[in-house]
């Protein structure tokens, strides 16, 4: 054997032994101290909550003084955490007051600064989430800017943050973002479903997009809002060039449930794509109730199994003996 290697290996061994023993000690200390710091943090948060509640309950202070006292007790990032109800769940009224104070005292821009300029990505994200939770319209531009950043985490959490705002301008930004195909339609639309019905007009306008993906998801979103006033436009979409959009439009008409949709749905029963016919049958059973039977009966002989099954189910709802 070649002994000249051995000294080198021994030196490596010494190095590795030192590294492994240091690492063991570090991991054990880390595990032991984490519990301690978690306890300290939760104690701090409980105290903070008590102090905030006592200031908010004070009847002797003016609104401005209360604001100053509320904000003075927490640093911007902690405030960011508090506003977004992440680590400390405050009573809704107090949370609202805190948000209002932040906007009134212009402190929200400190958080905005962190959201845009901090070098720590996760601090930025924490601040971005809080910006959305504040629902302050002035920070929309900041969120819109970070939405298009290359870092996918920043972009993703800016999108979630916009979802917290629940305003028409935020909805417009999200609907534009939908067309960029960066995140799935499921994700973007799930953020918009909680928005107030005032966004419906913008959603309907977006159904004129040349992109079938955007049209499809807008129709899916409209199914949640069930806007009676948009029946005409949705009926038009049952003639869309994309079969996905046609199927979604049929589904949406079924959700709205008005008999005026019957002609458009009846037309879709002759569609060349099986799932459009299937959704048309299902929607017809919702909009025209028992009157759907004559229209659905021929569909029992459809070439597709699922269309036949939907027709059978639809007929069985109103005439069980006729379903076969």
């Amino acid at each position, binding site marked *: *054997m*070649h*002994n000249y290697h*051995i000294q080198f*290996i*021994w030196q*490596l*061994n010494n190095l*590795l*032994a030192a*590294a*492994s023993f240091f*690492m*063991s000690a*570090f*991991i*054990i200390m*880390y*595990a*032991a101290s*984490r*519990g301690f710091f*978690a306890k300290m943090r939760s104690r701090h948060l409980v105290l903070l909550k008590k102090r905030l509640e006592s200031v908010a309950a004070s009847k002797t202070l003016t609104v401005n003084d209360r604001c100053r006292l509320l904000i003075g007790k927490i640093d911007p990032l902690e405030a960011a955490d508090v506003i977004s109800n992440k680590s400390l769940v405050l009573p809704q009224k107090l949370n609202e007051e805190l948000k209002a104070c932040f906007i009134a005292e212009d402190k929200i821009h400190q958080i905005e600064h962190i959201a845009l300029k901090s070098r720590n990505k*996760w601090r930025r*994200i*924490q601040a971005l*989430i809080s910006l959305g939770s504040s629902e302050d319209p002035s920070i929309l531009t900041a969120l819109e800017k970070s939405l298009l950043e290359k870092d996918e*985490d920043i972009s*993703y*959490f800016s999108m*979630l943050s916009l*979802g917290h705002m629940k305003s028409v301008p935020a909805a417009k930004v999200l609907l534009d973002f939908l067309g960029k195909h960066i*995140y*799935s339609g*499921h*994700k973007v*639309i*799930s*953020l918009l*479903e*909680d928005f107030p019905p005032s966004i419906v007009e913008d959603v309907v306008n977006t159904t004129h997009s040349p992109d079938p993906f955007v049209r499809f998801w807008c129709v*899916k979103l409209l199914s*949640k809002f069930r806007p009676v006033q948009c029946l005409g436009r949705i009926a038009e979409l049952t003639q869309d060039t994309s079969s996905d959009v046609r199927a979604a439009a049929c589904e949406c008409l079924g959700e709205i449930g008005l008999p005026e949709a019957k002609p458009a749905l009846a037309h879709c029963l002759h569609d060349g794509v099986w799932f459009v016919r299937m959704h048309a049958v299902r929607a017809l059973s919702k909009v025209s109730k028992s009157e759907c039977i004559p229209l659905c009966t021929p569909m029992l002989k459809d070439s597709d199994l699922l269309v036949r*099954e939907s027709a059978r189910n639809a007929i069985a709802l109103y005439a069980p003996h006729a379903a076969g």
Partner: protein
Amino acid sequence: MPPMRPDNLIYVIFIICFGYFVILNMYYVSLTFVALFESRRRTKESSTEDYHRLTVSAFTLPVSFIIPAHNEESWIGDCLKSVLRQDYPEFEVLVVDDHSTDKTFQVLDGLLKLEPTKKDYVEHFVCGEVSGIFASRNHPHVTVITKSSGCKKAGAINSALNLARYKYICVIDADTVLEPDALIKVMAQVQKDPDKIIGIAGFFGLVNGFRIKDGRIIERSFSLNPVVAYQNIEYIRSLAAHRVAWSKYNAMPNVAGGFGIWRRDILLELGGYASEYSSEDLEFTFRAHDYIIEKKKEGYQILMLPYLVGWTEGPSNMSSFIIQRDRWQRVVNEAVWKYRHMILRPSHKTIAFLTLPYFLFYEVLGIFFEVAAIALVAWGILSGVLDLGIFFTYIVFMILCNAVISLTALFIFVRDQAVLKTRYVIYFAILIFLEFFWYRWLMTVAKLSGTINYCKGVRTFDKYERLKR
């Protein structure tokens, strides 16, 4: 040419084995280093995610759970209860009683109040004989399928796939107890891009020693039994470090059967799980990579998340351990042999260059290096050629290299998953230094047994005996 002198021959074999060891450890160091950052990123991402919105959204993707169960009377109740307790807006559960001879069906009946049902059953996937389909009276979204024969665990899963309605299929083992937020945490990732993500897995550890009541984990008291503790260390090293790193480069080799989610269209296109292998999960993951790349579908992803999704039972004695690892070794050999065409093929990118060569050189051929090294040492000692001082130096080097890598993986786990109490961390850290003296040998025996059985053509799904609870 003069014959090689014995000490020269030993030196050549030594250089080959030592070179193999150094390359392997450098590979592990690189993977662990990548996982150090990737796991952190995923954990931060998870702690910032808005799960509440997903639990109430009508647009959250629904999931079909599949639980294949063969003689699982002691675990199926807790497993099912933990699934039913998932904080998720829409899912169905398909339990397959796969020809059980114990009281698995009676336990299910007691829990679910079963009654025969006439569901449209179309056999898209080969699965053996289905003897009955039962609906639950108290949980309408649960269906039980009973099978009377055939096609191993793969067939049991396939029979449930024939009934599954939703786009994503979550397969879990019947001895797995899920965390209540397991599904929402994993599906939150899928929801970001369901067109790309075709498969996804999460971290699970061993449930042995835990106190469980009604599918809920009451106390996470990790077993101090060294067989179990070493497996926990191995799971941490493999799942929380290596697979997370492979996943970053889309080179994930295995969506494990303990908890894995697949997109249904991929399962359909691939004809479901294959029953001709000793186990189904590794082969299917390789097949999915191969299929998608051959089809030139761009931008697909198979992910491993470091989030703790659940706990599964592991073997608690040496003979059970060898039975399980023998099967794992066989399936590795089977899958690597079947997909050998992918190795170093430029079109297959990272899976071809990062994962499969590792599987070939370590998981398949590693046992030959290990046996060669042991034979070399034995021969060296018997013939008096081996200097024990040098031998000791290299053994210490190997132990310390392994310790540094395992400790880094342990740190990743301790940092990102707050489940290990300090006393378990101390215990695991001590065990890591002693791994070479016992567990490594056990692994070598299991791998050797698996390799021999593979060569003999054994393809059975051997189950080790469950502990009575």
